[in-house]
Each structure stands twice: as C-alpha cells, then as structure tokens.
C-alpha cells in the first residue's frame, strides 16, 4: 500500500514551552505543571469552565488539541469521521496516585473518574463533538512506526477521514504532549505523514519543509 497522507498541523508542549508547527508560540519558564497548564489556558483566551475540574493529563491533552486545531478547517468534517489515536507510557498513573491518597480518607469519585487514560480522549471529544473511532495505547516510548501504520490504515479504509494522533504523558512533574493532525489532502505547510517526520517533531528536530 503506497498511500500519501499529510501532517497538516502539529503541537508540542514540553519544558514549559508550547510549540506550534515546531515554532515556540508561548512559554512560561518558572511555572510548575499546574501553573503552566493554567497559563496556557489563559493564553488561549477561551472560556471552558470544565477545564478546571480536569486532571493534569486531560488538561494537557485538551490544551494541546486546542492549539493543534487553531485556524484549521476541522469543522468541515462530519463528527463520525474525526478520530483520536493517542498513546503514553504511564496511562493515568499521575491521577491514580492522587485517587489512592483520597482512599485513605474518603474515596473521591471526582478523582476516580480520571483513573483511565482515555478519559482525556472523552474530554477532547466533548469539547469538539468528535464521534469517530478512538483508541488509547500504552508504549514505553513513543512508537512513531506503529502510529503511522495504524492511522494510515484507518484513513485508507475510510474508517476515518481525519485523525488526531500522538503522545500525551504526565507523571508528577514530568510531562510531554506531542499531537499531529493527519489529513488526506495536502495543505499549506503540510508535511508527509511518515514515521520519520513524527519522530523528528517528537524529538524537536528541525524539519526540512521542502
């Protein structure tokens, strides 16, 4: 199968910097993770009260998606044609620890609900009315080859027409989110949807756009 799809947008949140298409668009150097996430939310100048009750993993994935989809024509797609294929190493362990602390006192349903990694996908779907296929995979390290192959298959078989894919991981103070918007048609600034390009963006290397 020789099919060409495109990375039409990408976003990285790491080390207190937000990168859109590999260029820094926001930074807040001195903040801890909760403060950094709040400052990105404020930078977006949006109002979404549900944001405040999310756990750090959902906040990170939700914010990354907001930046990823800015000025894209994602709304042209039917809700059922938009999917999410996300991955990370630590599932929801960051929130699992918080929930377990509450168990000693009174188990908190508000914390328990975030003890599954795909709740982040649910939050993104609720925000954007995405109703297509979703999936959450656990890898020790970001597996660009798997993501490229799996998402290409979903697009080629028309299960999806567009897909948000990538990595969103949080554990204590460590975090990294790298998301890609994959579309079937080439757009301005698009780069080929190849594992090598996913890896280059993930590792924050300069992509040769020619």
């Amino acid at each position, binding site marked *: *199968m020789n099919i060409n799809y495109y990375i039409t947008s990408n976003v990285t949140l790491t080390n207190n910097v937000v990168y859109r298409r590999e260029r820094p668009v926001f930074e807040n150097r001195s903040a801890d993770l909760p403060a950094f996430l709040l400052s990105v939310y404020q930078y977006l100048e949006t109002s979404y009260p549900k944001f405040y009750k999310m756990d750090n993993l959902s906040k990170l994935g939700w914010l990354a998606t907001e930046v990823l989809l800015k000025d894209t024509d994602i709304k042209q797609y039917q*809700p*059922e044609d938009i999917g*999410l294929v996300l991955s990370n*190493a*630590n*599932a929801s*362990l960051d929130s*699992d*620890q918080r*929930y*377990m602390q509450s*168990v000693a006192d*009174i*188990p*908190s*349903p508000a914390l*328990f*609900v975030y*003890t*599954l*990694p*795909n*709740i*982040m*996908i*649910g*939050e993104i*779907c*609720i925000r*954007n*009315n*995405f*109703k*297509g*296929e*979703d*999936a*959450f*995979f*656990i*890898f*020790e390290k970001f*597996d660009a080859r*798997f993501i490229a*192959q*799996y998402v290409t*298959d*979903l697009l080629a*078989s*028309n*299960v999806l027409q567009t897909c948000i894919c990538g990595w969103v991981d949080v*554990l204590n103070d460590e975090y990294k989110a790298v998301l890609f918007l994959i579309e079937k048609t080439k757009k301005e600034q698009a780069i080929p949807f190849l594992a090598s390009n996913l890896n280059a963006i993930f590792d924050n290397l300069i992509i040769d756009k020619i």
Partner: protein
Amino acid sequence: MRNENIYQSIMPAVYVVADNIYSPIGTTTAQNFERIKQGISGIQKHKNKAVSDTDFYASLFNYNENDNFKKFNVSKFEALLIASVQDTLKDAEVEVAGDKTILIISSTKGNISMMDINADDPHLQEKIALHTSAKIVARHFGFINQPLVVSNACISGIMAIITGMRLLQSGKYETAVVVGADEISKFVLSGFQSFQAISEVPCKPFDQNRTGITLGEGAAAVILSTNQKYAGRIKVLGGAVSNDANHISAPSRTGKELSGAIERTLAMSGLVADDVDLISAHGTATNYNDEMEAKAIALANLDTVPANSLKGYYGHTLGAAGLIESVISIQSLKQNLIIPTLGFETIGVSDPINICTQLTPKRMKTCLKTASGFGGCNAAILFSK
C-alpha cells in the same frame, strides 16, 4: 454511506483459531461454558477488610488460587495473562518467535493493586506501568515483536480484538495473540463504591430492579490468524468504535453513537440487521448503561434479536470483559446455544429488547458483541461462522 462491502471483499479473512477463559468459574473455555450452562456464577459475597470495609458481592479467585499465582514469580495480573495465553497456545500452532506474530494485551488497571499492597516499593511506578507487564508476558513466551497494550476503559477487550483484526488485515502480521485481564483490588472497588455504582445484590442486567454493577476478575485470550489453513473456523468479520462526545462518566442519552458503531460493524461485515442471530450485550446493570444500550439496539433495528448479558456470571471484568464475553459468544455459535441472562427477571429498559432468559438452542451463524465505557467510548464486533 460508503461502500464498505468492497473493503470487506478485498481484505483477508481473520479466523479465531484458539481461545481461553481463565476465571473464578473455570480455567478453560470448555469448563467455563459447561458451568455457566448449568447456571453456575462466580459471584459470591465477600468479607475482606483489606479490600472493602463493608461486605460486597464480586466474582473473585479464592485464596488457594491466589497462592497458586505466586509460583509464576510474577504479579497476579501477569500470572492471569500468562495462564490464559498458555492454554490457548496448546490448541494452535503459533510461531511465537516469528516476526509475523504479535501479542496484544488489554487491561484497564493492570498491576494497580500494588498501590494498595506495596505502596513503599521504590520501583512501584515502573512495576505498575502496563508496558512493563507486557514485556514480562512477552518474554515469558518468547514473542520477539514489541507487544501492543490497549487501555481504553471497558471497551479495551473488544478494541484489542478489533486492533488485532486490523493489524492482520494490513498484512503486517499473520497471527495475533490477544489477551486481557484485570483483578479486583481496593483501588477499583472503592472507586466504583464512591460512584454509588456497586449493587448490594448480585447484578441484574436489564432488569427493572437493577441497582448497579458487580465486579469480577479474570482473563481471556483469543488467537487470530489469516492463515487459510484455518478456513472454516469462526471469523471476525468486522468491528467499529465510536465516541458519545457527551459525558466522561455517563453514557449517551440517545444510544445513537453505539448504534452507529453497530451499523458500521454490520456494513463492514457486508451484513444487515436481519443477519444478526445473537447479541452479547455489555449489560452492566447500571441504570444508565442498560437504558442506553437498549436504545442503541432498538435504533439499529435489532430489538427482536435474542440478547444476553453475561455479567451475572462473571461480574464486570473490566479489561477482560470484552474478551471473556466474546469467547462465550463464539462458543454459543459453535454449539448453537444461547446462554440466558442470569439475574434478569422483568424487562426494565424503555426499549423492550429481546433479553434471553433460558438456555435456548438456536441455529446461529452470527453474533454481535457490544461494549461501552467511561470516556464515552463504544465498540461493536461481529463474529460469524
């Protein structure tokens, strides 16, 4: 509607060549099926202060069995995965170390019980990581490809089979060993208790007096293959996943999204609603799930098709549920026998779907298996002779 029949016709068939259920009811598929046919359930009342301050109903392995797990020198969760895979490998020629073979693991919480028991272990985070368990299981059998781990709430088991089907149809692999497991710990039980979601009696799926779920532990595995030498075995014809985009812990109000996943599954399989002979529903016995599921089944024009929920036997086994219930469905197809819905007496959902209440012989060709979970996710998969 896109022409997905063409998609089906150009894709290689995916056969189910071996399966296992390792549960408190039995340790092989045959034993499990024989016992649930007799109405035997794994659900019992438990007094265990280490897990819950109050008595609770659940389907759990007994203490002797728990000792048995220790001999593997791995965690109970990993031992469950290993035991289930081991049994399936007896019935299939699988080139475990071949580069065309992949191991796929499904779980919601993996080794989370270590948080209750070994909270001071300095390597706790690494041990709890699902990829660590996956590596241990892969090494135990000698799989050379990196195992794939699916963790997508209560649809994980079905999603793992759908993922296996896709990876095989892409041609990258010829054999997929798909296994799922979860154990019941204080972490999981206290969470569902905090949601007021646990039934005080064994769960009653789709019943008017249902009051919530009963949890269970266990494992199940299937081996999928595209090798033509297995032609004639049960096939996985299609599967689909959707999201409600409605609420993170409550299902869709209309059932439209699960219904969409069902319709997509049928279209992929080249079938219509009339072709479905049996529905193995999720049927958790919470008010909202069963109501939504009944709406989705009715929306998909499947309200007259015999349907069951197996939660009255196994409880809700979380990441193993989709696999355990798929294996029972496959056995139902092979034996032309529908398992009744234990715990169900009087229909208690607004769309009167056809809940099966007796052991029913019926010549069947196809079975639709569905599930839904937190995060608004839904999945459907179709098995066929």
